[in-house]
């Protein structure tokens, strides 16, 4: 890897770490379940960034091999598939959690996780 290559690839890694840290901080301090689910999505977006960074090739095109000469430089298609699967998983989990949050609001009249204190000890 060239020098400028490493400088470019460091930034997205830092972004991924930052998103992870910010998302986790949000979950830990959250006072609203919808906010918490969103923070979980932010945490998950760090995995998207990480995956795409790892598959990135400097100067590569999208991995669609139609009408391009053989040997064209392209980014790694495998991580695209992984990221896509990850998005699907994320959508499922977010939908389920939001449904639970709606139920909590219906039964409890609140969305504040601190007020859910039925399970202790």
């Amino acid at each position, binding site marked *: 890897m060239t020098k400028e290559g490493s400088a470019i690839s460091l930034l997205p890694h830092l972004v991924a770490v930052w998103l*992870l840290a910010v998302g986790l901080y949000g979950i*830990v301090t959250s006072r609203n379940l919808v906010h*918490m689910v969103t923070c979980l999505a932010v945490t998950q977006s760090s995995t998207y960034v990480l995956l795409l960074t*790892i598959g990135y090739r400097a100067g590569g095109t999208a991995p669609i091999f139609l009408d391009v000469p053989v040997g064209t430089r392209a980014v790694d298609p495998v991580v695209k598939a992984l990221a896509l699967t990850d998005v699907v998983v994320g959508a499922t*989990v977010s939908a*389920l959690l939001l449904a*639970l949050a709606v139920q909590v609001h219906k*039964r409890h009249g609140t969305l504040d996780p601190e007020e*859910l204190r*039925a399970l202790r000890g």
Partner: protein
Amino acid sequence: MTLIPPLPVAVPLLVAALLVGAGPFVRRRVADPVAIATAAATTVLTALLFAQAADHPLVYWFGGWTPRDGVVVGIDFAVDRTGAALATLAGFLMTSALIFTWRYFEAVGTLFHALMLVFLAAVLGFCLSGDLFNLFVFFELLSVAAYALAGYRSEDPRSLQGALNFAVTNSVGGFMVLSGIALLYGRSGSLNLAEIGRALEREPVDGLVVVAFVLLLTGFFVKAAVVPFHFWLADAYAVAPAPVCILLAGVVSELGLYATVRVYWTAFAGVLGPHAAGLRGVLLGAAALTALLGALMCYLQQHLARLLAFATVSHVGLTLAGIALLQPDGLAGALLYLLADGLVKAALFVCVGVVQHQFGTIDERDLHGRGRGRTFTFGMLLLGGLALAGLPPFGTFLGKALMEDAASRAGHAWVAWLFVVASAVSAAAVLRAGLGVFTGWGVPAGSRADGPDQPEAEASRSGSGRAPDGSRPPATMVAPAAVLLLATLALGLAPGLAGWAQTAATSLSDHRAYAAAVLDGVTSKAPAVAAPALHLPETLPPAVLTVVLAVLLAAVPARRPHTRGRRRKVAWRGVLRATLALRRLHSGQVGDSIAWLVVGAAGLGGLLTAVLR
């Protein structure tokens, strides 16, 4: 005829889809037998697979995309003895849980059955997969199904809270796993476990490998509920319907440990092998902490499901101790213990489910003495408690004896004491609860021990149809407990089982043979390895000691001791305060659970960086 490995995964998925599609037209009378038949058929398929994988691992490439010159182009299922054995266990537990469900719920939609079958399919895929990313996908699929099942009784606010904690914590664990996979892919250019192992082995350990390992370990430890990643577990168990608890306790924790074993021995054993001593220390520390904290919290519980939840935590610690030795002898013991312990936990949860169905509550204090005359359930709970303590000849005894033996030969003789203390205390809690509920032994009803506000008994009764006091529990609810305990007994008595486990563990921990089988298609017959002979005069005393301790601890009513003298009083108050603080830590808050997860991951990262350099 050879069976194709994906079949056991496809069958329950297909039936689940049909059940959902036909949902509006299908009566429950139809859904129950269909689900049970599917689970039973899947169990038979996994058992067949198990028989086929007995000699050498079965490798199946989807679409026939076999590796070319050792380079992977496809996705594989790699089935060995261990994976197939766990898959069979999962099928068996699912069948029992569905039979139990039949009369447990008064009203339940076909969605419940569909979710159960999806869960089963994901578990089987997880056990059989040889591809790291597919492992992750099945891991997420089984998790999402489990979240929905845990929060199935959405009319109960507690249920929602437990499910939320379960879902958020495990999702974060899942992200950790995925990040670890991404890093490994960046290094090795592959998602196949065997190929990753070969690629990593070419270079010495560096920061990237350590970070990836820590991320994967954290994710799997969240699932297995190793301290301090365990906070979600008791909340999820306390609120999940009993049939779901059977699967959570019997399968999910087990899978977390299995994933650790599988990924370590296929991908990391080569590169981390030279540093095994340091790694062993860290893992043994985590195991000891988990076993002791779980046992203590278990003893402090009065809510039967939470009690069993912490017993699960404690026994996860014990199994991890066997794995942490990082050699085949300990692994063989851990493998047997994993299977036997899963069966025992499931049987105990069946008993708790019966109690809940009969009395509408599972709080030990509200139930005090109300179970008199329920001899069968009482007997099952008692036997389950004793099996938990490792009473010979239950399968738990054999697994524990093998692990203790391996630990003492590896120079960690203290592990035997860990086993005695942790299993005696957790079994004592179960026996105490059983004696209190079914004979009225111990502290009389109404006297609530001091502690933080307990989950209200009233809330735990919601959902399941409550039978009037005095009616007998239906046979389909109590019979699974007996069958599961018989299976545990069979595990302990089957001749040659120790040798079987030893062979399985040897081939599981041979990462070169695994890579050769997957990448080069070289399947050699696994050499039969004789298990180290167990000398009864050496292995029996700890087992007897454990059982005696458990019975004593259970029979002595937990009462405030005579506190004459100031110093004693102060000491007693200190103990009370410490336990109170410990219970306060388990606040049931999602935020706290995640905070502990971060602390645990950071701790694990720091320790492993220190020992792996």
